[in-house]
């Protein structure tokens, strides 16, 4: 038990040092990177590690007779949480969201320190001590609070009332509800029943299993399967069309969606919101192939009202590509990210 706790403490201290180092630029701030697509899991894991680390640390200090009072433990943990959200998470979370997390965190800390009567007493004690001001130190503290609190709160409210020019927040629906059908180049496609004409095996039959077996592998790098190179001249069916789709992608789409389909293309920095990241499990992996067909064909200008048409520079690709080319690009996007399109059932 003791060894386990010591280990926990070690992990916690090392992690904290690393985090502090990254925040204050002692070590490069990308020493431990948040990996795209796995970010929420990684963050949960990290915070879990820290909680374990703190538990170990507190146990160690206890054992060595240098126990930290509950009061400071509670405040310390909450401050840590706020710092983690502010400095570790990137892209940055807006203040309003951090405030929400902070409130939830505060409630959790209160629940923790008031879990039983004794703990709660221990927690309150330092506050009551300052109020009672029995010792010189506490008296000093009390006078300091008396003066500082009004100044601080006055200052905050002054800051809050100064006119500011922060960017207004605009909400938009990421995946608006699709229509039942869409008309592209004079032909109507029913979203529920249409199929990609290129998701076919070498014999030319629609074959989802065949195509799914030939997409890139999940995991670091997302590389193609060793024997499924779309650039192999002998390819027939699916992989041949993947290559053709890739050619179209790299002549038209990568400027925004990026060479790795992660929304970091050459022009991406100029646009707001930044282009969709197809490697994120929240985009094409969650959608049907025909939904993508509709979005690609109609672009930002064809978004329904809840999608805020004004903010998207996504071209209506029916102006630039044929229907076949659109299907091939979609085929390539699923191949390159290693995701299966969602099916309607």
């Amino acid at each position, binding site marked *: 038990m003791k060894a386990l706790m010591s280990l926990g403490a070690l992990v916690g201290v090392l992690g904290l040092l690393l985090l502090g180092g990254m925040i204050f630029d002692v070590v490069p701030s990308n020493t431990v990177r948040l990996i795209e697509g796995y970010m929420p899991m990684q963050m949960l894991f990290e915070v879990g590690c820290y909680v374990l680390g703190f538990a170990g640390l507190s146990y160690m200090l206890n054992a060595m007779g240098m126990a930290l009072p509950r009061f400071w433990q509670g405040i310390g943990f909450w401050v840590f949480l706020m710092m983690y959200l502010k400095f570790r998470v990137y892209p940055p979370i807006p203040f309003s969201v951090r405030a929400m997390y902070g409130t939830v965190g505060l409630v959790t800390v209160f629940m923790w320190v008031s879990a039983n009567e004794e703990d709660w007493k221990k927690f309150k004690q330092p506050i009551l001590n300052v109020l009672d001001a029995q010792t010189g130190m506490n008296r000093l503290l009390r006078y300091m609070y008396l003066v500082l*609190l009004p100044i601080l709160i006055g200052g905050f409210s002054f800051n809050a009332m100064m006119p500011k020019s922060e960017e207004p927040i605009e909400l938009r629906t990421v995946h608006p509800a699709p229509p039942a059908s869409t008309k592209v180049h004079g032909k109507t496609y029913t979203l529920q029943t249409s199929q990609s004409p290129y998701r076919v095996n070498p014999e030319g039959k629609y074959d989802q299993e065949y195509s799914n077996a030939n997409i890139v592998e999940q995991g670091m790098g997302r590389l193609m399967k060793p024997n499924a190179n779309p650039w192999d001249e002998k390819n027939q069916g699916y992989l041949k069309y993947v290559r053709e789709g890739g050619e179209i992608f790299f002549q038209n789409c990568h400027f925004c969606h990026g060479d790795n389909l992660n929304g970091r293309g050459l022009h991406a920095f100029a646009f707001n919101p930044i282009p969709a990241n197809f490697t994120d499990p929240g985009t094409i992996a969650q959608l049907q192939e025909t939904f993508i067909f509709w979005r690609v064909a109609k672009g930002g200008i064809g978004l329904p009202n809840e999608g805020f048409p004004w903010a998207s520079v996504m071209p209506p690709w029916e102006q630039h590509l044929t229907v076949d080319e659109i299907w091939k690009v979609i085929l390539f996007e699923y191949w390159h990210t290693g995701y299966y399109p969602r099916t309607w059932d």
Partner: protein
Amino acid sequence: MMNSVTRKAGVVAATAFGVLLTSGGFGTAVFAQSGLPEGFKKGDLAPEPSADMVEAGKRVYFTKCVWCHGVDGAGDGPGADRLWPRPRNFNQGTFKIRHTASGELPLFDAKKPVPGQNDLFETVTHGLPGSAMPPWEGILSEEQRLQVLSFVTTQLVKDRKFTDKQSETQTVLQLADLKPKPATDESKKRGSELIVEKKCVECHGMEGRGDGNAFNLKDDWGFSIQPANWHKCWNFRGSRQDPYNVANIFRTFSTGVNGTPMPSFADSTSVDERWDIANFVNSLCERNALGEPLPIDPLTDKPKINFVIPSDMVEGEIPSDIDAEPWQKAPRRYVAMGGQITHKPRNFVNRIDDIWVRSLYNDKSIVYLLEWDDRTKSVAEGKLPWGPTQVNIDIKEQEPKTGESGSIAANQNNYAVYNDAIAIETPVKWKELPAPIKPRYLFGTNEQFPVDIVKWEADGSIRAFKGTGWDKDFEERDNYEETLKVLKGEWKNGRWYVMIERPLGNKKDQDYDEDTFFEVGQYIPTVFFAWDGHNGDAGRKMAVSAFYYTFMNPPVPQETYIYPVVIAFGVVLLEGWVLTRRANKKKGKTL
């Protein structure tokens, strides 16, 4: 970074090699004792990567790289022609960013992913900012990056061999051992003199905006290229995602850029002089009002963007002199520009990638000061073949075929010249737009949701249009143009300075259905368009920004000073109440 030790080292180095210096003129050879340029040492060729690494690398290459660099690595993949700069042709073994002497192969060792000792690995890791080559760190593992480079260096570099001791040498810049010289005013001043003496300004321009020789430069393959703009260090190919690091400039200047007219200056300058030049070049990169480096967004490797353009209030006339105090005090905003690639003709190679915007207003009008780098002043000769209101004009989009007459590569630096231009677009009646509906960024949505467009062109004209859709020609606006003023329209050393004044808008003098009315303390959606005449930009072939907001800062209301005092007083009362209560409670207990 600049402690006294490095300063001492710099002084020692300066005196030691100062003796070796003669006049320091162009072409004066500066050699250390070994016969190598100063700061360089002989290196050994790296061992050949294992066959396994090469085979594994092939898999990475054909998943990720082939799309631009091509099946044979000749830089001719499907994406190649719509890129400028073009993807690298690996066949000749010509690589730009190196620690090795000019003309030599770069450092690459498949077993040593060490920064500073493995040029190609760092290029793949950090990408080449300002080009389409992204940073592959976080996408490919370290192992995968080494694998793909093993494949490229052994299979796709065809004219040279990384392991051939007969033909290849490695003369390596010892950058880690050369401590940067502190960027003192003296050092920067010397650097500013040296860039003239060493003729840097002939290509990079008098202010370093890359406007010196913008049209005649070609790379080894005959494709047009341009000298770097020193004011946008985040676009330096060799910036290694650390644009304000002077060592990167020192390295590029010491080793040259293979395949381009940029030579190595290792033989003609001392290390000390190179630090002076690097310090000066680094000091030119855009900084904030306090002279600090701009914060760089790690997701895009460009300066972080603030979408609100604040406009400060001025009493009386708004000055037309940029050096006047109100302009110097007005906050500058970086407005990122991308190519218009939504509708035909798409602009894949936009040469204007940012604009710096400042704004001031008084009781009658608002003024925008727009500054942007453009290597050439372009004014169309003769009359343009279309009218000012025409949007649907005969400008062709290039087919993606390298080598053919319609390709970007064939046309770059070779277009019919039109006017440089800039436009500000704001929605009309922006206050009345129902919540989800906003006009589209490109020339408005329809008659119901039109936009107000004010466009300045390099021939000195300023015009006002009404936009009702991306494919609709502009509509003239009655007499609005008479109320517009161009306070400044000057091109100097690769930069445009344009100051446009427009009325704030009032129902008496202007048309509420056509003109945008500016109100204090409100967020007014604002879009910027820019055209580079020498890039053949006209009509929809242009650079566009996202939607920004113009925000006219209101004067501070009186309540701001009153309420906080009242609140603070309230807190004092509250404190008193808590203390009394506690004291009473305790008394009650003890008594």
